[in-house]
């Protein structure tokens, strides 16, 4: 039985590689210097969806919500084998908290049509909250299975998954439709398929085309891309029938009161040379202080 799947994928700043260049002279982070990447666990979610399609048949649509540059994620998933990709892009979606984001995503999911399984990464590395997945499930009023490491099987309408719990695992069965959040240890995401890479590297949204050319040329190019299956769909708030005041910063229950970039002052630590003698002295000092027994 084929399954209709929707994967939620996010483009994030690569917060794990905050290196020298990304730090300003005052010790704070230069966000502009951080490369944008595919949120790692969303790749695991995509892989899980593709492998479900391999095993049982089905269709994988990826929704990615974010600023214009996030269309890179839509192109990326097509090159990895997704059947369809949509870029949900609207300025009114900016600066949303997880509640507002989950609301907009749930509207986008509903607009994508009927589904059996929604998959997303456990969490995104920019906020690390792990909240958006469960909140989307909440908004859609469907069950969620979080921290999934393995799909054991799907029998008709029942999906069995192995999920992590504190210090162990659980095998749970859930009736579809359901939302699943996927952990990094679930799988090894497949690389781009060479043929698809060639095919989809030219895929564009209408907005991208209109940046490159104007008027009739743009319309012609858009028609040409659409005819060849290379036009990436774009949805705005009206397309997904989302209420403006429930989206973005306007729809956020939480507000950022202040942000503080910790500036590192030179510590007042004692410098110990990496020599045998200096280290022996350090150990002696710690023992005398009763810090070490």
């Amino acid at each position, binding site marked *: 039985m084929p399954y209709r799947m929707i994967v939620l994928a996010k483009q994030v700043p690569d*917060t*794990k590689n*905050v290196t020298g260049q990304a730090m300003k002279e005052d010790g*704070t982070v230069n966000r502009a210097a951080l490369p944008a990447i595919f949120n790692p666990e969303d790749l695991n979610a995509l892989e899980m969806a593709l492998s479900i399609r391999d095993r049982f048949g089905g269709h994988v649509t990826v929704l990615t919500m974010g600023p214009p540059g996030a269309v890179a994620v839509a192109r990326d998933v097509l090159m990895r084998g997704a059947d369809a990709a949509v870029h949900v892009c609207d300025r009114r979606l900016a600066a949303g908290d*997880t*509640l507002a984001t*989950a609301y907009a995503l749930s509207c986008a999911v509903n607009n994508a049509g009927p589904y059996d399984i929604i998959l997303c990464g456990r969490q995104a*590395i*920019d906020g*690390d*909250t*792990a*909240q958006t997945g*469960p*909140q989307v*499930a*909440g*908004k859609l009023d469907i*069950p*969620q299975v*979080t*921290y999934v490491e393995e799909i054991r099987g799907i029998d008709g309408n029942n999906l*069995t998954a192995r999920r*992590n*719990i*504190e*210090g*162990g*695992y*659980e*095998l*749970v*069965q*859930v009736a579809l439709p359901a939302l699943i959040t996927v952990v*990094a240890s679930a799988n090894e995401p497949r690389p781009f398929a060479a043929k698809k890479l060639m095919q989809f590297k030219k895929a564009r949204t209408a907005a991208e085309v209109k940046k490159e050319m104007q008027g009739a040329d743009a319309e012609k190019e858009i028609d040409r891309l659409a005819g060849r299956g290379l036009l990436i769909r774009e949805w705005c708030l009206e397309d997904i029938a989302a209420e403006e005041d429930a989206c973005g910063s306007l729809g*956020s*229950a*939480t*507000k*950022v*009161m*202040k*942000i*503080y970039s*910790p500036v*590192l002052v*030179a*510590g007042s*630590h*004692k410098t*110990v040379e*990496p020599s045998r003698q200096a*280290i022996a002295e*350090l*150990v*002696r000092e710690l023992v005398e*202080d009763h*810090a*070490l*027994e």
Partner: protein
Amino acid sequence: MNDQKQNWLGVLVFAEQDEARLADVSLELLSKARELADKLGKKVGAALLGHNVGSLAAPLIAHGADVVFMADNPGLKTYTTLPYAKAVSDIIEANEPEIVMFGASLIGRDLAPRVAARLRTGLTADCTDLQIGDYSDKRGSYTNLLLQIRPAFGGNIIATIVTPDHRPQMATVREGVMPMKPADASRKGEVRPVCAQLDGLENVVRIIERFKAEKKVNLKAAQIIVAGGAGVASKEGFDLIRELAHVLGGQVGASRAAVDAGFVGKEHQVGQTGLTVRPKVYVACGISGQVQHRAGMQEASKIIAVNSDAAAPIFSVAHYGIVGDLFQVIPLMIEAYKQK
């Protein structure tokens, strides 16, 4: 207590239990809840869900709860999302707490967002500090809000988040972040049975099999922790970290980078998204020391940092700094300790 008048309940803590054992983090949160509620001049509640868990009410009261809302139902015996979210939301809607806190455990992080979505309110994950304070913006001034403080952006900045117009204000906090105050068995409190209306939600997700190992690593209780980071470079490299920990009679810790790279298990992770520890000695080896990590260890009494990069932020919180190759420095430490 006058129940007709709402807003008597300052803080509600989700009292997480598994197999009738309370999670430490819930008791830690009660200590914090007590402090916050006293500032607000209001009460502390604990939401205790499960089956045959009556004996857990007393420790909750001893740790600071004024009222324990006890939903005892076979459908709540083992945690599953939907019935728990329904029962917790019902307790919140009936009692209207200002603030609700959850441990940022796997259960808390599954449950809290679901409850927040249901109640259409804000939720801040992994707070490292919670305070009561004032806030104002274009739209108005607010007093006595919950200031939800957390590292963000991969731990590179620290943000203060507020929930001005929605109630309750909700936050999750990792285990170990809030110190647990000693239990006071003489504290008085009230146990209020709650009749949970689960509406069949307990049958939507069925647990077929469950395996849980005893916790092997107890970092929180460790007096000495030797922790390794990305600089350890490999799984095998961690053997040296383990050796030093063993020699010093301590436990093995790790930075998130080391855990993510697969050098060592997640249960060893120290930091905002791991555990917060306060040992007597913390030896940080090959750990650069981003805010994320420092948030979890900077209260150690003696911090010894070993890093080949003299500019590594870890040195800013260290008491002793050794700029050098950990693979040379650690063997010297082992040798020195053995000869002490």
